[in-house]
């Protein structure tokens, strides 16, 4: 099989969907964050593949910014989680459902 851009894009799409499924299934907030990271990485792969396809730097530059965003998100997300866990140890995302209806 000849390696084409498609394969990179398909790989990205699959990892994106796996990440999305994790967010919809898992209850541990930390794992949910990890799944978001999976999704972002899938997008990064897509960006670079497109960049290569188009022979354009924009794809790689975008990935650079996305990396920073991902890191910043993790910082905030983990801070929030740690703050919550200080009050209730071992809580899952489902335990945080006082607000509903």
């Amino acid at each position, binding site marked *: 099989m000849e390696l084409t851009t498609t394969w990179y894009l398909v790989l990205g799409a699959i990892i994106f969907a796996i990440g999305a499924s994790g967010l919809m299934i898992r209850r541990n907030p930390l794992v949910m964050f990890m799944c978001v990271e999976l999704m972002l990485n899938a997008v990064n792969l897509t960006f670079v593949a497109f960049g290569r396809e188009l022979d354009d730097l924009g794809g790689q530059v975008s990935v650079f910014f996305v990396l920073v965003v991902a890191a910043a998100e993790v910082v905030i997300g983990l801070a929030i989680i740690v703050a919550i866990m200080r009050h209730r140890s071992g809580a899952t*995302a489902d335990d945080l*459902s006082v607000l509903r209806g």
Partner: protein
Amino acid sequence: MEELVWLIPALPLLGFVLLVLGGRRLGEPGAGYLATTMVAGSFIATVLVFVGLLGKDAEERLFEQTLFEWIPAGDFSVDVGFLADPLSITMALFITGISSLIHLYAIAYMHGDKDFSKFFVYMNLFVFSMLMLVLGDNLLITFLGWEGVGTCSYLLISFWFTDEANATAGKKAFVTNRVGDWGFMVATLLAFFTFGSINYGEMFSGADGMATSTATAITLLLLVGAAGKSAQFPLYLWLPDAMAGPTPVSALIHAATMVTGGVYLLTRVNPIIAEASSVAPDVIAWIGLFTALFAASIAVAQADIKKVLAYSTVSQLGFMFVAVGSGVYVAAIFHMVTHAFFKALLFLGAGSVIHGMDDEQDMEYYGGLRKFMPITAATMVVGWLAIAGVPPFSGFWSKDEILLGAYENNVVAWVLLLIAAILTAFYMSRLIFLTFFGERRWSDGDPEAHAAADEPVADDGARSFHPHEPSPLMWVPLVVLAGLALLGGLLNLPFTGDTKILEQWLEPSLFGNEHIATSGAAGKWTLAIMSIVAAVIGVIGAAAVYIRRRVDKSVVEQPILQDAWMVDDTVTSFMGGPGRKSFELVSWFDRTVIDGAVNGTAAVVRHGGLVLRRLQTGFVRSYAVGVGGGAVALLVYFLFRTTF
């Protein structure tokens, strides 16, 4: 002098502002007098404008005043402007006139109320809104007034809000009116996109030759709005409940002015109705007819004096709708004016009775009050004869016009309307007899007084009251209104063209869309006699029931009539046919289907809400499924649209 038209709504608005700012400090009765003065001033301004218009030729009796450009919307704009023409000034005249009297009355009626000044705040705001409604020169200003009167009505119904029933009634009025508003809003939009303007003048000049379907749609949508405001079937529901408010409110808003807004609106847009397919006016007429009959039959069975008047109002508004549907706009306006006179009178009279009877509204506890409240009794008798259609009282003339119009439109409609007229005479007579005549079904707790009054006293179940004539502040308006109810017919006597003052006066506003009676003199006389006969049948019928019970009190063959508690049932049986059952059916229908429909819609929304609510589980992952599912749905849609 017609330049003063802006002053007409401005004065009540000024009153409103002043009362908001200083009403509490002004206190009682100052706040009431201030409010009354403002409304009276507005009346004087109206008279001045009226005189100004009179001084012109009939064709030039149209004055538009634009205050400022209000909403710029692309190539069209909406102005805040007033239209002084015979129709709007007629409305403004009786609105401000009756409002002044009712304000005066309310000063005494609301005496001692802790929110005295607030009451007048609302009342002045109401008058302002009502005047905006009738004087506005475009649909949006009218709509503004329309919303305003609705809000004031709501506020005033709920005025004594410690009472749960009042709060609920206020809610009901608000909700039902929203349904009507919806029709109005859609009609306004439709008009805007048809004519490119919602200014009446520009609309009507564009109406000629417009698409029949559009005209029909606009008419029917406006009808939804009008039916909501004018309490027509099936949107009448709120009006009987609205009686929970103070009586002057019932008189002003729910009898004389606001509820006629729908009739005014339909009359105003007569050039559009003229372009609509004949279905539209027929629908108007039949809705009015059904409402007139339906409400009259309910009024027959009510024990609460205000409820009788409320259903009566619904029924009379039905008459006006029949007039509009039959194309006799003058008759509609004529009846609106006379109705405003006598119904305001009846409500104020009822208020005076209620006032005298320590807020008791159940007629079961009344009886024989004429000796204790002679002025109230006398004026209410005038009102009764007027609404029953006994000549020469005003109601006869206006109702006769409507009957004539209905007859020339559709004989079946005429017959049914005549039955409604009989019922009207019957239930009003019942009200008067039960209240002012017959035995006292109450006690003043003072045996000496009984002897002096030489009245038979009900032996048991009687309650203790001290009926008395109210203060002059309250009875003077009654007397004035009684005079108007007596003489109101002079506005439009049918004898010759010259005596049809109202018809000539309104002519420029009707653009020749008025249906001109074709019947000959003989026909007219026959119809008039028939309507007199109808009134007499109603009165005699009521008297028969009532008098028989009184005279043959001990006669065994009429045990039901002996029992005061069974009056309604007696009346029901007396009305013949499957009688009682049909009335039960009506009330069942009212309770179950109509109430059910209103509650049902709310329930559907509520139920839908509760179902949807279950989707809001509080779990992040299920929200994520929602987002992901949405994403999938969007992807599916977009991928179906690809060009590939």
